[in-house]
């Protein structure tokens, strides 16, 4: 599968997630390789470790304000730190899990892990550069970070 096709799988996943889970479409900006080895992270970052045929990670990072509005759109009233973290992890999990439709059964994913220190880098594989997919939803900006060997 070409890099372009692989990125397309995740872009399609993002668009489907927002139009289905919060019933309001998002737009993806131009995917790009991270300019440095440590792309900026937002308030909440959910990380899925990938193993099996591919190794690396898929991470979703978003500001608190965006996740709060998403919870509201889901009729959720609990806006606690735990629920905001939970949502960031669940989105990362869903986007990584959906990718198995194209990547196959051997694209194995972990349970979500929260990355709470914005200043420290995610555990990227040493031999790969992170790919960043910018996500615009309403007036908010989030990122999907994909880094696979």
């Amino acid at each position, binding site marked *: 599968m070409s890099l372009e096709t692989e990125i397309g799988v995740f872009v399609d996943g993002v668009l489907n997630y927002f139009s289905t*889970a919060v019933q309001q479409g998002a737009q993806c900006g131009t995917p790009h390789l991270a300019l440095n080895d440590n792309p900026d992270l937002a308030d909440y970052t959910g990380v899925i470790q990938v193993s099996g045929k591919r190794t690396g990670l898929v991470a979703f990072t978003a500001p608190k304000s965006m996740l709060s509005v998403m919870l509201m759109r889901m009729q959720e009233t609990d806006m606690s730190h*735990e*629920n905001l973290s939970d949502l960031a*992890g669940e989105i990362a999990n869903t986007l990584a899990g*959906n990718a198995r439709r194209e990547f196959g059964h051997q694209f194995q994913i972990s349970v979500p892990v929260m990355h709470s220190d914005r200043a420290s880098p995610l555990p990227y594989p040493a031999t790969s550069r992170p790919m960043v997919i910018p996500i615009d939803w309403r007036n908010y900006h989030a990122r999907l970070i994909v880094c696979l060997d």
Partner: protein
Amino acid sequence: MSAPRHRLLVVDDSNVIRRRIERANELPQIEFVGAARNGLEALEMHALLHPTLVTMDLTMPAMDGAECVAKLVQRDPRLRILVISALADKLTAIDALEKGASGFLCKPFSDRQLNDAMRKLIDT
């Protein structure tokens, strides 16, 4: 309005998803009776609450959903289990059904998709 005839246990490691499934249920035949965060908790809750319906995530800590489906069906072959998972490949769905699940709904889902899947589950 008819009285609930089905008792629903929701199993997912995400609190957001557990609460969402509970809230989204529009079917008067279904009564939410409890929730569990992983397969081990689900087995305990099953023994305590005697649900007739279960929604089951697959990727969970402690005991994953596929193993839990097999154990629950062995314990109660009449139990109807709807697997709700982000794992979108065909092999995963087939594996869950072979282990005894009655249906498969892929995340993300809308409230309508969830209710349609639950309706199918209780109509079968």
